[in-house]
C-alpha cells in the first residue's frame, strides 16, 4: 500500500509567551520560593529548555497551605454555591478562550501531538470546569445527604501525562464543593498549571483558593503529609500511591488515589475487526501510551488472532511519529529521558523473556526522547510486559479460546482500572463487562472520557472516583 507523503504542518508557537522563569503561585500571586532552588522544564521533543520553575521546599508548601486555609476560612467556605459556580464557569470560559495557547504549551512541555492537546486535553479541561461549575449550588441533590460540607484544604498531586486535564479533574470538583486547593503539577510538565494560575487571576478568583506549587517528589510528599491538609488526591503510580496510603494511615485525612493499570482489551472472534483495530491503536498508542487506563494487553480470540494482528500491523505502518506540534503527527515524544529508559528496559525484558517484538519502519528524530510503536506477540501472562505497567507505546498480544479464559486472563492482574470488549453480540459484551474487575469498561470503543462519567480503579489501581456525581463524594463530608 502506498504511503501518503505529508508536507510539514506545524502549529505556530507564537501563541505561547513563555517567561524565562516562574515562581510559585501562592495567595493569588507569583512568589519566589524560599527554598531558592529551581528545576528546568524541557521540551521532550527537542530537549530545549522551555523555562525554569521553582522547586518548592517544605516551607514553601507550608506557605501555600496556610494561604489555602486562610482563603477557605475567610472567603471560599462562606461564599454561596451559586457564586462559587460562577467563578468556575468563568474559568471554563477562559480555558476555551485561551485554548490554542494552552494546547501548544501542553504539546511543547509534554511532547503529545497537537491534535490530541487541541482536541482532547484542552476542551475536556474546559468541560470539566463547566460541568462541576453547575454542581456548586446543587450539592444537596448529589445523594450525599441533605447538607454536604466541604472538607477544607485539598492537597493534590498530579502526573505528567495529561497535565492540564488532570489539573481540571482535581481542581474543578474540589472548588465546586467549597474546598480550597494546593496543587503540585508533575516535575516535567509544570507549565500549563502556571498558565492556569494566570487564568485564575484573570477570573478574579479570590487569592489563596487555588495555589500551585511546582517541584518534584519531595514537594509532593511535603504537601501530602502537611498536617493542615484535610484531603489528599493523587494521580500517579501505584508504588507512590501505596506510600501515600501508608503515610496517611492513622490520620483523619481523606484520600483518593487514581493509580496504575494494565488494561485488557478483549477482542472476540465476532468483533467488527476494522473498528477493533482502530480501538486497539487508540487504546495503546494514544498519548504515546502514557495513559494509566491504556489497553496495554490485547487479548484476542485465537481463531482470529492472526488476522487481527496482521491488520493491526498494517495500520501501525501508517502512524506518523514525530514533531508534536505538527498537525499530522499521531504519536509524539516520550515525556522524559527517565520514562524512555523505563520503556526501553521493559521492552528489552519482553525480548529476553521470549516474546516476539515488532515495530513499523519509522524514522525517529535525532534529538529528544522517542520510542517507536511496538507490538509484542507470543506474550504469556507471566511475562513482565504482561504484568507491569510500561506506560509507553508498547502493546502485548495474548490469545484466548473461550470467554471464561478471556475474563480470567483479563482479571489476572493486581490492577483494575480499565478494560475493553469488542464483539457484535450484545449479550456477550454485557456478560463480559459484568465479570471484568475494572472501573471503566469500554465496549466497542476505548479511551473515552467525559466529565459526567465516573472514572477510577478497582484493586491496586486505587480508590475513589473522578467525574460525574460520584466525583463529588471525594470532596464532601457526608
Amino acid at each position, binding site marked *: 500500500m502506498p504511503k501518503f507523503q505529508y508536507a510539514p504542518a506545524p502549529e505556530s508557537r507564537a501563541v505561547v509567551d513563555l517567561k524565562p522563569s516562574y515562581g510559585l503561585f501562592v495567595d493569588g500571586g507569583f512568589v519566589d520560593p524560599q527554598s531558592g532552588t529551581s528545576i528546568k522544564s524541557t521540551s521532550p521533543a527537542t530537549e530545549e529548555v522551555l523555562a525554569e520553575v521553582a522547586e518548592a521546599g517544605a516551607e514553601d508548601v507550608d506557605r501555600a497551605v496556610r494561604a489555602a486555609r486562610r482563603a477557605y476560612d475567610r472567603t471560599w467556605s462562606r461564599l454561596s454555591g451559586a457564586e462559587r459556580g460562577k467563578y468556575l464557569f468563568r474559568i471554563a470560559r477562559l480555558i476555551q478562550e485561551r485554548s490554542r495557547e494552552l494546547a501548544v504549551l501542553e504539546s511543547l512541555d509534554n511532547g503529545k501531538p497537537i491534535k490530541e492537546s487541541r482536541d482532547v486535553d484542552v476542551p475536556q479541561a474546559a*468541560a470539566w470546569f463547566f460541568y462541576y461549575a453547575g454542581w456548586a449550588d446543587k450539592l444537596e441533590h448529589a*445523594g450525599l*445527604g441533605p447538607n454536604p460540607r466541604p472538607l477544607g484544604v485539598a492537597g493534590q498531586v498530579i502526573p505528567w501525562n495529561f497535565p492540564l486535564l488532570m489539573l481540571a479533574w482535581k481542581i474543578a470538583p474540589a472548588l465546586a464543593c467549597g474546598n480550597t486547593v494546593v496543587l503540585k503539577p508533575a516535575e516535567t510538565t509544570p507549565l500549563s498549571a502556571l498558565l492556569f494560575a494566570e487564568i485564575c487571576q484573570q477570573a478574579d478568583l479570590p487569592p489563596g483558593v487555588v495555589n500551585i506549587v511546582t517541584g518534584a517528589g519531595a514537594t509532593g510528599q511535603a504537601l501530602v503529609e502537611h498536617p493542615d491538609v484535610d484531603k489528599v488526591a493523587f494521580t500517579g503510580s*501505584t508504588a507512590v*500511591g*501505596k506510600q501515600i*496510603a*501508608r503515610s496517611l*494511615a*492513622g*490520620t*483523619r485525612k481523606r484520600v483518593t*488515589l487514581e*493509580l496504575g493499570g494494565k488494561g485488557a482489551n478483549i477482542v472476540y472472534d465476532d468483533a467488527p475487526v476494522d473498528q477493533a483495530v482502530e480501538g486497539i491503536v487508540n487504546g495503546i498508542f494514544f498519548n504515546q501510551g502514557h495513559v494509566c487506563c491504556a489497553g496495554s494487553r490485547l487479548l484476542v480470540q485465537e481463531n482470529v488472532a492472526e488476522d487481527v494482528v496482521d491488520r493491526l500491523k498494517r495500520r501501525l505502518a501508517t502512524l506518523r511519529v514525530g514533531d508534536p506540534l505538527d498537525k499530522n503527527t499521531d504519536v509524539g515524544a516520550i515525556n522524559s529521558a527517565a520514562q524512555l529508559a523505563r520503556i526501553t528496559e521493559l521492552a528489552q525484558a519482553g525480548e529476553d523473556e521470549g516474546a516476539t517484538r515488532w515495530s513499523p519502519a519509522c524514522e525517529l528524530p535525532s534529538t529528544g526522547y522517542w520510542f517507536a510503536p511496538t507490538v509484542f506477540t507470543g506474550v504469556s501472562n507471566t511475562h513482565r510486559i504482561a504484568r507491569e505497567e510500561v506506560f509507553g507505546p508498547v502493546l502485548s498480544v495474548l490469545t484466548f479460546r473461550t470467554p471464561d479464559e478471556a475474563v480470567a486472563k483479563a482479571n489476572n492482574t*493486581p490492577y483494575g482500572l480499565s478494560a475493553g470488549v469488542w464483539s457484535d453480540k450484545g449479550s456477550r*459484551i454485557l456478560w463480559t*463487562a459484568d465479570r*471484568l474487575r*475494572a*472501573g*471503566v*469498561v*469500554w*465496549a*466497542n*470503543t476505548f479511551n*473515552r472520557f*467525559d466529565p*459526567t*462519567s*465516573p*472514572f*477510577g480503579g*478497582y*484493586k*491496586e489501581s*486505587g*480508590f475513589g*472516583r473522578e467525574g*460525574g*456525581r*460520584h466525583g463529588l*463524594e471525594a470532596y464532601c463530608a*457526608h
Partner: protein
Amino acid sequence: MPTDASAAERSGRLEVRKTYKLYVGGAFPRSESARSYEVTDAGGGFLANAAMASRKDARDAVVAARKAFAGWSGATAYNRGQVLYRVAEVLEGRRAQFVDEVSRGEGLTRDRAEQTVDAAVDRWVWYAGWADKVAQVLGSLNPVAGPYFDISAPEPTGVVAVLAPQRSSLMGLVSVVAPAIVTGNTVVVLASERRPLPAVTLGEVLATSDVPGGVVNVLTGRTAEVAPWLASHMDVNALDLSGAAVAEGVSWSALEAAAAENLKRVVRPAGTGGDAVEPDWWPTPGLERVRAFVETKTMWHPKGT
C-alpha cells in the same frame, strides 16, 4: 452459656450447654490452634470458653470468603435481599437466646437487652431491603457529550475483613456486617474480644438462613493477635476498623498502614485525631457503610446503526 442457676435447680434438670466455636466456610470448627479463652459476663462470672482463633484460622476464613464471593456477588439482588430477610426471621426466632447473651455479656437489664435485640433485628431488615435498591441510588446514567451509552453501577469490593465493635456485641455487629454483605461482598468478621458470644450465635443463624457458607465467617479471639493478619492479607480487599476502638493492644493506624500494601479500602474507627471511639449504633444509618465497600464500574458503548 449457663442459664440462671436457680432456674436449673427449679427444673431439677441439668442444662445442655453450648460450645462456642468459630464459623468458617459454613462449618463450625474449633480453632486449628486448639486454644480457647474464657468469656465472662459483665460481673466477671464464667460464661463460656470461646475458640481463640489463630493466624491460620484467619487465613482459612479469607480463603472461604474468597471462594464464596463469586456466587454471592453473582446472585441477583432480589435473591440476596430475600436471603438477608430470612436471616432476620431466624434472628427473631432466636430472640430469647440473644437477649440472654446480650444482657449477660454487656451487663444490660433484661428490658434494655430486649430493646437491643429488637433493634438489631430491625437494623438487619433495614439493610436487607437495600439489596435491590443500592444500584439505583448509587448508580447513574451519564449524559456524555457524544453518541455513547454510558452507565455507572456499584459492584461489591470483594472480601471485607471487619473488626466488630468491642462493646455493642450484637447491635454493633449487625451494623457492620449487614452493610458489607448486602451488596455481595463476603466477610471475615473478628468478633468483640470480650463479648464474642452473640457473634457465634449469629453464625448459627446465618448457617440456617440460606446464606451460602463462606459469605460470613466469624472468628473469635484476641483482636490484637488476629487483626494484623487480616489487615496485611493480600487477598482481602477492604478493612473495617470500627472494632479497633477500645480494643486492647490494637493500633488502628498500624493496621491501616498494613492495609496500604494492597490498597485495601479502609473504614477508620470513629473519633478524632488518633483517638478511636465506639459510636452510638442506634441512630438509623445512612449509606456510608454500604458505599465504603462498593466499587463504581462505568461502562461505555457507542450508539449507531
